[in-house]
């Protein structure tokens, strides 16, 4: 493969300006993450400690193999939601290695509202299970939760992807041979009691762990029976009398050791063999990405400069380089693995659509994973392109993205607007992971366009009523719309709502992809099976 020849000059002023700007952006994110990673209030931590309990992040660190990466999913979920009181949505999820296997870990954070489930908490828990299902990962649930957050029960309990779905997923995964293990380190109450009960194997910790359908207050209210938690559903009860749990652990450390033993005895599947050679670091320093991302999103930049800083030895074998140039497609290696990469260099045209669809076909037939680097303002519009059948060609691409048999990974590196988001494998198209850069924006269209459209609609309404608006009045209508739209398309807004799997440091994109690609190979890549392409 040929090395990409970068035309970036790292000593020019523009580079330095962009570098500073983007470095500042990621610093903001890192600062927020650092606070979030402390979990709940200091007081909750103290209470936790007094009871001899570990913080959920400590539990994860202890359960992981020495030196294991931890690919955390959606660490900033629920950011600025629910009055900012639910850091990480009260649940830590991510993939790490336990006894040599990649395992999806779901751990309640007891220090955040007693580990109760807010709507986003449920969404995050289910997202973690979907990742496990799509990539064939066994699951570990570290259970320490008071169940649904009652004031918001209507957003937690009844719907398809609400609380019940968690148990459904556990059953389905178990039926597919994906090991489900629970370590109960605190409460598993009401519906929550099913979490350990639905697992294949379950460990409960003495004194602190408790599983019951109705806790002591409910029992007293309903039947008058007075009983304490340990006697009602503690470790001794469940491992000796009821059989709800399988292993009795004297303390959390012992429970964690047991978890590691269980995973050590779980057969380790072979990874799906895709083409791989010895990995090489990129020739161009990934750190230079900060100096390439424009400091205003409208400014275009060549996505090849980003590819050069993500792939092995900066080598890229470009496909159809001279045709449909607003889409850049080609083969490269990441961590030694052969991958196909699709990036954007402008709006999508009919030619760029068919080119992308063709390239996806190539990768699908050869079982080469696909990476999408999204920086897309949308499909080209206008009479000429409608006549040319833009939606028809766009549909080919969307068809291919939807039904390809290979794992897909999406990184939003700039704009993610409109149908461009679909073609470039947005959330709705089931990429195995979707990461977002701090500078990126997502929405049905750019905020300026959106504000213009909505303002036009308002002006028309007034016109029908016979009113003409002054420029000042128009501005007064437009500005709040613009502001609202802008906020709602920010990366932070997106990540809080789990539209993505996390905002990542652009310079670490390569590592995120290496880990994601490799863990995706736990699942066999199936055969090609496309639908009807509109010709």
């Amino acid at each position, binding site marked *: *493969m*040929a*090395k990409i*020849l970068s035309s970036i*000059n*790292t000593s020019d002023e523009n580079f330095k300006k962009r570098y500073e700007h983007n470095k500042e952006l990621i610093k903001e994110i890192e600062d927020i993450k650092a606070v979030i990673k402390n979990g709940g209030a200091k007081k909750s931590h103290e209470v936790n400690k007094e009871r001899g309990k570990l913080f959920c992040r400590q539990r994860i660190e202890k359960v992981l193999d020495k*030196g*294991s*990466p*931890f*690919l*955390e999913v959606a*660490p900033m979920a629920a950011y600025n939601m629910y009055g900012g009181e639910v850091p990480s949505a009260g649940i830590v999820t991510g993939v790490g*290695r336990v006894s040599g296997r*990649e395992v999806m870990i779901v751990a309640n954070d007891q220090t955040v509202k007693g580990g109760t489930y807010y709507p986003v908490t449920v969404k995050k828990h289910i997202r973690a299970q979907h990742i496990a299902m799509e990539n064939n990962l066994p699951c570990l649930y570290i259970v320490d939760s008071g169940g649904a957050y009652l004031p918001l029960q209507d957003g937690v309990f009844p719907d398809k992807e609400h609380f019940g779905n968690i148990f459904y997923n556990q059953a389905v995964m178990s039926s597919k041979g994906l090991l489900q293990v629970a370590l109960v380190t605190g409460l598993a109450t009401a519906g929550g009691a099913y979490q350990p009960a639905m697992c294949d194997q379950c460990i409960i910790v003495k004194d602190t762990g408790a599983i019951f359908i109705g806790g002591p207050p409910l029992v007293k209210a309903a039947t008058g029976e007075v009983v304490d938690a340990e006697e009602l559903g503690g470790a001794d009860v469940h491992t000796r009398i009821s059989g709800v749990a399988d292993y009795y652990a004297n303390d959390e450390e012992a429970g964690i050791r047991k978890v590691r033993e269980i995973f050590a005895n779980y057969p380790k599947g072979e*990874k799906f063999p895709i083409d*791989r*050679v*010895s*990995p090489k*670091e990129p*020739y161009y*320093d990934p*750190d230079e990405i900060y100096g390439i991302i424009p400091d205003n999103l409208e400014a275009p930049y060549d996505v090849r400069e980003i590819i050069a800083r993500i792939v092995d030895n900066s080598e890229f*074998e470009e496909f159809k380089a001279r045709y449909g140039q607003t889409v850049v497609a080609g083969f490269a290696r990441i*961590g*030694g693995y052969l991958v196909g990469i699709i990036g954007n260099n402008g709006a999508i045209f009919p030619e760029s659509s068919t080119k992308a669809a063709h390239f996806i076909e190539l990768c699908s037939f050869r079982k080469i994973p696909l990476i999408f680097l999204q920086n897309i303002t949308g499909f080209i519009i206008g009479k000429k392109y409608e006549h040319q059948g833009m939606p028809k060609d766009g549909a080919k691409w969307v068809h291919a993205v939807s039904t390809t048999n290979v794992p897909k990974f999406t990184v939003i590196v700039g704009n993610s607007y409109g149908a461009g988001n679909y073609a470039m494998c947005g959330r709705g198209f089931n990429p195995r992971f979707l990461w977002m850069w701090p500078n990126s924006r997502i929405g049905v269209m750019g905020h300026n366009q959106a504000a213009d459209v909505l303002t036009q609609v308002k002006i028309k309404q007034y016109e029908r009523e016979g009113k003409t608006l002054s420029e000042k009045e128009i501005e007064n209508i437009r500005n709040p719309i613009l502001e609202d739209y802008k906020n709602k398309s920010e990366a932070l807004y997106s990540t809080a709502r789990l539209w993505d799997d*996390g905002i*990542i*440091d652009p310079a*670490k994109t390569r*590592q*995120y992809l*290496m*880990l994601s*690609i*490799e*863990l995706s190979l736990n699942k066999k890549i199936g055969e090609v099976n496309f639908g009807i392409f509109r010709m």
Partner: protein
Amino acid sequence: MEYSECEKKRILVANRGEIAIRILKAIRELGHTAIAIYSDADKFSPHLTFADEAYYVGESEASKSYLNIDRIIEVAKKNKIDGIHPGYGFLAENTKFADVVKSSNMVWVGPQPKSMYDVGDKIRAREIAKSAGVPIIPGVTLGSNTDPVDAAKGLGFPILIKASAGGGGKGMRIVRDERELIDNVDIARKEAESSFADPTIYFEKLLEEPHHIEIQVLADKFGNAYYFPERECSIQRRYQKIVEESPSTTIDRMQAKSMGEAALKVIKEIAYDSAGTVEFMVDKDKNFYFLEVNTRIQVEHPVTEEITGIDLVANQIEVAFGKSLSFNQDSLNIPKGHAIEARIYAEDPVNNFIPSTGKIDYYKIPYGAGIRLDDGACKGFEIPIHYDPIISKVIARGKDRKQSLYRLHKALSDYHILPLKTTISFIMNIIKHPEFIKGCYDTNFINKNYEKLFDENEEYIPLAIACYYYLGSQGFSNEYNLDGRETLKECWQHLTNFRG
């Protein structure tokens, strides 16, 4: 890809070890057929595994194999070879070999034999540089009527007095002022007379704190010629380079440009049409003087490749087969970061660098960001006594000198070759020496710091070997294949403690 369009050639590499591997890889990347040769001692050499075909050329002694022109040509003819790449060393600068290759209707991957001849002799090369208007180290032969003081003043002190007929350092004297000159001239003449039966003496300007800095050039058959950022090669032991870096800390971009332009003048004078190197000496006042031209690819070429992203070997092959070059000289002048190379020899630094040949029992290679390893060894391979004991070159590239030094040091500390003695820890001591870190060093560096550059860690090698065998006997599986290469590590093992 673009190379698949070109006609497939059969190219023979008349060399061995790391450089043979480097060239064989380039040939295959270009889409040609790569052909190796080997001697008795190299029957299991790793370089054979990088070739499409390999042919035996003779017994272990170099004169009977890699230096055996008749035999190599015979093998080449028999196997329908289109071109021969000589590498470095062995026959690389042998005009006769180049002539025979060409007269046998094969392409010589190197310059025209005439150009090789022109600069093959130091005195001829000096004359050529002079006529190209490139400065040479000033010197004057002292006739019997010449006033030594005038002659000396014309050159400027300090001065080296040599016997005109002499060599090997005999009768050489350094004089730093007029007084010392007067004291020494007569003695030197007498010494010259008694030693060489000729009292003629020669004054040469003595360069103080000299630097050995060289310019890589690349030229084609159409008159296109380019120079690359300088390589600083002042770290030498026994007049052989051991650490090279680019760019140099001694000269600035303007000076590099003037040296580059001077290098082009020299090679244009001899109608040069391949990859080559023009070597210069630079004194403490940054004056540069022509030294010689190397008409081959050099050991240290990767340093230049790393900071420019240009594959010199592939280009050298392509120009030999008639491709023209097209670079932007201005963009070549800006180094992309900094690169440094450490030459790993199977030598014992403590015992005056005597070769330490033998079988490699344990071979672990370094990995990491910006690290390139050009090696020609593997576990189980026996470093032959017959040839240059180079094992490999570790090249580190960083965004600046600080980073590449750090990366090189880390890589060297991860590089283990047992039980041979190597230059690894010696070089680690060089690059962590405060003067080296500051970039303040000249060709005297190793001699000046000799004592400090040895490492007692060498003593632990037998212990390390013992541990290795012990662990092996305990049934610890090692992570290495039979060829000594590491098995591919999973990313999940490799990205230790990644937390995003």
